[in-house]
């Protein structure tokens, strides 16, 4: 059972996607310019230095609901890398090693790859704009709308 494009669940999916992106950009902003007193780390020669730009860009795209599935896939991978590099060495349980948020985000983004952006997203907006052109009258002219 999937949410139809106009249902309440499809709209809430967009709300959730927006909230998720909104929380995520804050992590990126922390790393890029120390937003909310975070530790600045954008050393692009290191792997962990790429986290900031990826999180900020990905979070913004998620908030807009643009290229949702691709962005979510990349962010899911980023969270997986972050978890195994940073948090997993500190202990087995995610709630113990501090990586709970990374695990949670990883699987929620994986779900977003399959669910898409929801009703209130630029992806859906552009997809719906494309549809009328495909409705051709039998004579081959585009339908007048």
């Amino acid at each position: 059972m999937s949410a139809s494009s106009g249902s309440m669940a499809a709209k809430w999916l967009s709300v959730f996607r927006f909230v998720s992106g909104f929380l995520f950009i804050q992590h990126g902003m922390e790393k890029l310019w120390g937003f909310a007193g975070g530790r600045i780390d954008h050393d692009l020669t290191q792997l962990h230095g790429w986290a900031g730009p990826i999180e900020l860009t990905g979070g913004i795209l998620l908030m807009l609901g643009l290229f949702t599935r691709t962005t979510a896939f990349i962010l899911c991978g980023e969270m997986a890398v972050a978890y195994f590099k940073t948090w997993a060495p500190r202990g087995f349980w995610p709630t113990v090693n501090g990586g709970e948020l990374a695990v949670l985000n990883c699987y929620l983004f994986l779900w977003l790859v399959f669910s898409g952006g929801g009703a209130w997203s630029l992806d859906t907006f552009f997809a719906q704009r494309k549809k009328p052109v495909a409705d051709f009258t039998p004579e081959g002219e585009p339908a007048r709308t």
Partner: protein
Amino acid sequence: MKEKLTQFEPQARSVARIIVGFLVSLHGFRNVFGVLQSRAGRAGAAPMALDAIGTAGGYIEMVGGILFLLGLLTIPVAAVLCLTTLAAYVAGPLSQPSQLPIRNGGEEAVLYAAVMVYYALMGGGEWSLDRFIGNKKLAPSAAS
């Protein structure tokens, strides 16, 4: 491609549900039995919201998390856990000096509450005991 991915959204939703249920139950175990205390984390981080609701909330998290992991009674459990995590946000992070979830320990609680609403609306997904039992009720003789 998008249609193919959307076709498998219920399965992906189940996978995420298993992980979310597992993590929530871990918080429950921590609140009830005092095990699995946090040893590492972000430096100077405020205590997490889900640890702020004491033993009663811990039982709800523990039982609810396990039921959610199994996908049993998913919709009512999702509703209860949504309210629990919101209560946890009020109990802990709201009294922290910072209003940002990233600083006041409430980030996980916000994410859990938000995703629980979706599960309450849509159910647990394909790989859940709810579906298993439902399938058996509807078609007990069908080969599956």
